[in-house]
C-alpha cells in the first residue's frame, strides 16, 4: 500500500508562498509580519517571475525563489533568517534560516536562490 498526494495539493501550497512580494533579511525568527517588517536589515522586491514551481528533487513539488543581488543594507546587523512577506495581506508567509552574516551600512547584499519543496507522503 502506498500513500499519495496530488501535485495540485502541493502546487496550491507553493502558490501561496509565491504570493510573497517582499523577501527580507532579518536577525532572529520573527513572530509576525510586523516584526519581520520592522526588523529587516535588507530587502528584495519579488515578483511572480521570481518564483518557479517544478517537480521536487526528491518527490512532490518545489518552488524556487530567484536570487537577488545589489540589495541595499537598510540597517547594520547580523542576518540569520530570511522571510517571505505578503504586504497585501500583511502575512508572514515563510521563514528560513541562513548562515549568520554581519552586514554594515553602505554595502550590498545578495541573496542566493533557494527552494521550498514538499515531498510525497511516506
Amino acid at each position, binding site marked *: 500500500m502506498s500513500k499519495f498526494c496530488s501535485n495540485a495539493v502541493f502546487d496550491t501550497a507553493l502558490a501561496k508562498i509565491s504570493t510573497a512580494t517582499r523577501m527580507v533579511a532579518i536577525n532572529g525568527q520573527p513572530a509576525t509580519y510586523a516584526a519581520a517588517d520592522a526588523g529587516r536589515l535588507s530587502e528584495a522586491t519579488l515578483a511572480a517571475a521570481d518564483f518557479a514551481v517544478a517537480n521536487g528533487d*526528491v518527490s512532490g513539488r518545489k518552488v524556487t525563489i530567484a536570487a537577488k543581488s545589489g540589495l541595499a543594507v537598510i540597517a547594520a546587523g547580523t542576518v540569520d533568517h530570511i522571510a517571505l512577506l505578503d504586504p497585501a495581506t500583511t502575512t508572514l508567509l515563510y521563514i*528560513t534560516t541562513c548562515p549568520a552574516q554581519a552586514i554594515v551600512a553602505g554595502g550590498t547584499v545578495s541573496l*542566493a536562490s533557494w527552494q521550498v519543496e514538499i515531498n510525497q507522503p*511516506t
Partner: protein
Amino acid sequence: MAITVAQVETNGWILRVTLTGTRSAIALSPDSPAQWAANFAAYALGPNGASPGLTLTATTNGFIQSGGTAVASSTVARTLIATKALRKAVVATAAGVRDAKNPDEIDNGDGTITVRLALSQHIYVGDAGLTLTALAGWRSGSTAQTIAVTNNSTIAAPAPIVRWTDVPYQLQSGSFALECAVVSHHPNALAPVAGVRFTVTDGTTVKTFWATTLSTSPLYPATTGDGAAALALRVYAAAVDPAMATALTKGLLRCDYEVYPWIGPAQKSDPAATKSMTNLGTSGLATAAQVPFVVAYNPGNSWIVPRFAYVSPTGATTAAAANVSTTASTAAATPLANINLAIESLRLWSAANAGAGGTLAAANGQAAITQSVDGCRIRLIAGVTTAATTTAVTYGVNTNATWLVIEGDPAAANPRANCILRGSSSNVASWQNVSRVRFAGLAMEAASGKFALAPYAWCDNFEFRNATPTDTSAYYGWAASPGLVWATNGKWWKTGLSPATLGSQHNPVLVRAVTVERAINAPAVVNCARLPTAIGGTAGISGTGTNVTDAGVGLDRLAIGNDLRFLNGAPAFVMQNVAYSALPAGLVLGKTYPAASRHGFVNNVGEIYGGQSPLWYGVGENTTAMSSENVIEGNTFAGDRVNAWYNSLTLATIALNDIEDCQARVNRYANNVTLKNATKQDAYFDPVVQALRIGVALSSTRNKAYAVGAQIVIVGSPANVYQCTATTGNTAATGGPTGTGSAITDGGATWQWVATETRQHGYRPQALGMWSAAYGVGFEGNIDLESANDSLGSPEYYFEFYGVGSQSLYVDGITIATGPFTLDKSGTANRQPYQPLPDNNGGGNYTPLTTGSGPYILGRAKSANVDVDQRGLARSIPFAAGALGVPAFSLTPAPDRQASRATSPVSGWATTLPLAGNALATRAAVTMTGWTATLRPAGAATTTRAAMTLTGWATTLGARGAVLATRAAASLAGWATQFVPATGRIATLAQAPTIGWTATIGTSAGRLATTATAGTTAWMVTLVVDSDRSTMIGGAGTVTWRGAILPASARSPSAATASIVAFVGGRAVVIDSGRIAIVDRTLPILLPGTATPPERTLIVTGDFRTTIIP
C-alpha cells in the same frame, strides 16, 4: 535560413557570415536612432541576454595553473559572442546629409547574403577549433545550427603589462621581497594571470620562486605618503632567501620576472633568457619595463662595509677618514660641516681602507669597485643643511653597487619634517658627482633655483617643496641634469612646475605612495594622490591638473590605484601624442603615427571640480594616433567627459581629413564609470571639416572620382575603399578621371566615377580604424552615467556597442534624477549631469550609492586585474564598476524540504546502515527513512524493530522494488517477499496476536498440529480406525469402539474430553473422569495370597488405589 560559411576576418574581431536569405529591408532616411534601430530589426543577437544568439568557441594558447606553477597549454578555452551587426561606413550626400545607419549586408546573388558581425573580443592568430553555435532566430528566419568557423585573424595575442614596483640596487643582507604589478588583457575572474616565475641568480646559481596569487605588497607605507588614504597595492610577490641552499654568493644579484597569462604569450624581463650579468651594475637603471631588478646582496656585511658620517653646521671643516665610522654613534660624535665634506671623508676612508671595505671585491661577474661609498649613510642633524658648492667632491667616488644614503638623523624628532636639505642657488650640488643617491627621511627644498639630484636618485620618505612656498613661482623641482628618479612614500608640493614635467630633466621611473600637487609623469605611478586644496594645494593656477603621463616611455606604462581628485584643470590621464620612432611590429598597425600602446590605467579615481577638461584624454583628439593593447579598467571618472578612442581627426587640411584615420585594436576597457564617454569615428559630423571643404571651395575644384565603402568597390576582406586623389582636373588629359557612368582604368586599380565633387559635409567616411573600440570589442562591465536629460548628450557620440555587460544610460534613454555617488563634488562650467553647479573645492566621495542611481554601478563587473578596490576593499564577483566599491554580503537561505508523513514514530536502527551507490540522504526531520538501497545488517547485528521484540535476520532483506518502508506503527512488518529464518533462528513475533500465515500449512504424515488455544481441535482429516478395532461413535458422550484401542507400547492415549472409555469383560465401562492405563508391570498393590500376580494392570479412575483390575 542557415549559415553556409563563417569566418573571422584578418582584423580578428569581425565575424563574416554567409547565410541563405535576403537583405534586410531598410530605409536610408530619416537619419535618426529610430530608423537605425528599424534597419537592424532583423537581428536579435542578445549579447547581454542569458542566451546570446551567436556564440563562438575556440581554443587558444595560454597557460594554466598546475602544482603551484603555470604551464603552457594550447587548449585554453575561449567563448566569445557576436554582439552587433556591423553597419556600413557612413554615406554622406552632397548636401551634407548622411544616410541612416544600416547593416553591412551583401547580396551574393545566389540566394545568400553575407553579413558582418562584431565579436566581443579579438580572435587571435593560432586560435583553433572555432565553432559557431547559432540559436534559432538570431536573424529573422534563421535556424539553430552549429558550424565550423575559419580563423583568418592575423592579430597576435597581447602579453601582460608588467613593471617592477620597487626600487632596484637596494642593499640586502638577508631575505628580501621581489614584486611586480601585473595587468593582463584577459584576467580570469580576479586573477590577472596564471602565475609569475621569479628567478634570482648570482651568475652561477639560479633560484626560482613562483607566485600564482596576488598578495598585498609589504613594501612602503600603505598610504599616499601623506596619510590621506590607506591603499593596498596588490602585486605578485616572492620572498627570496639567498642563503637557502644552494646559497647565492655575495655581490649583485640579477632578478627577473616571467609573467604567464591565461591567454597569450608570457612577458619576461629577460626576453633573451640569457640572464646576462654583463653590465648588471647599470642595466637595472632604466625606464623600460623589461629590465632586470638588481639587488646588492651583502650577507653579514661581508662585501660592503656600511659607514656613517654626520653633518652638522658646527662640525669639522676638513674632510678626514677619522670622521667616518662603521658605528653610527662614533660618527655622530665627529660630524662634518657639510655634505661635501662628508662625501669626501667617506672617500678618504675608502682609500685608506681599500682592503677592509674601501674597495668592493669583484663579485658575480662585476668588476671591483674602488673608492666605494656604496651603502654609506650621511646623516643630517635637525635643522637646515644647505647644499654647499664651495668644496668640490673628488671625482672617482663610486656607488656602482647600491645607493649612498643622505638621510635625516633618525635620532631627531620627526626627521622628515625637521631635517631639511636645501638646494643651493647655483643649481649644483656636491652629490651630483655621486652616481646614485638615496634621499631618505628628510625634507628637500629648492631655494632660488632648482634642486639638483644625483644622476640616479631615489627619494624615499620625503617631502619636496620650494624653500619659499609659492605655487606661482617658476622654481623648478629638479635641476636639468638628465637622469632617473624613483620616488616613494613622499609629499611633493609647493613648486611652480612639476619636477617631472620637463622631459630634459630627470625622468621618474617609479612614483609610488606620493602625494603630489602637480603632474606625475612616470611610466609607473601607483598609489599616489593629488594633494587636496584644503591642505595646501592651490586652485586656479596653471597646470594644477595632476595629469599622469608616461614621461616619454611609451610601452608598458602602469597607473594603478591613484586618487586624483581635486582637479580643476588639465586632464587626469593622458595617453596620446607620444611619438615613437620605432614600435614593435605588432603595434605598428600599418601606420607610423604617435601611439599609445600597452598602457594600463587601473583602479584610479579622477575628479574635475572646477575647470573643464576630459578626465581621461583619449586617443585621436584632433590628431592621428594609434592605440593598441591598452588596459583601461576599474576607473571612476567624475565631473567631466572621457574621450576614449575619439578618432576626431579635425586635421589641418581637407586632404588630411579625407585620408587619415586613427587606429585601435586589442584594447581592454572594463569596469569603468564615466559621466560621459564619447566617440566619433566616421559618422561624426565635424563642422570644422565641413568648413574646410566649403571654405576652400574644394567642391568646385577637386573634381574627382570617389567610392565610399562597400557600396561601390568590394575587393578583399574587408572591402577596400579607393579614392582618387587627382586634383588637377576632371579629364584624363588634365590628370583626373573622366567619363560619365563608365569605369576607367588607372594602372591596376579600377575607379568608378560617381559624381563631381560636391560634398559639403563634415564626415570622414574613411575613419574606420577605431571601429573595434566603437563596437566595444574587449569592453565589459562599463557604465556611462550620462543621463538622457543631459543636454551634452548626442547620438553623434554613440558607441555602436558599449561592451558586454555594459550600459550607456543615454543610449538607453534612462533619466536619472539623483547622483550615483555618496558625495559628488565634481562639476564643471560646461555642465555635469548630477552636479548642477561646479563645486569650489572638490574632494567628493565617489563610492557608489546602493540606492537611487547607484545600482547601475553595483554588481556590474565580472573580472579584474586587481582583487580589491582603490581603497583596499576586497572584491567578490560580481562587484561594482569603477575604482570604488561597497562591501558585498552574500546570504544563502537554507532550502526547505517538507516531507509528508503519515505516522509518527521513527525507525531505530541499532547498527550503521551503509548506503549503497548514490546514497539517499536522510533528512533530520521527523519522517521515516526510505532506503532505496538494500539494508544489510552487518555480521550478527540485529536490526531492531520499534516494537517489543528483536528480529535477527541472518539473510538479506530485499525490499520489493525500490522501496523499503519501515513502519513504526503498531502493526506488523509486512514483507512482500518471503523471508526465511536461518537454521536455529527464531522469528519472533512483535506482539500479539499470532503470526498469520497466508500460505497453506502442510502437516507431515502422522504428525498432529497442536492448537494453541483451549478448545477442541477440529481436524479436517478423517480419523481412520483399523478394521479390527472399535469404532468411535459420535453422540452423547458415548463412543463405541469396534475393537480395542491399544495404545502403542508404553504410550498412553490422553483423552481430550471428560469421558474415558475402557472395556472389561466385553462390556463397556464408562468413567466420568479419571484416568485409564494399562501398564506392563505390576503396580505395588495388595492382592490375596493365592492370587497370581498380574502381568498387567488396568488402572481406572484417577486414584488407582480404588479400582484396580488385574
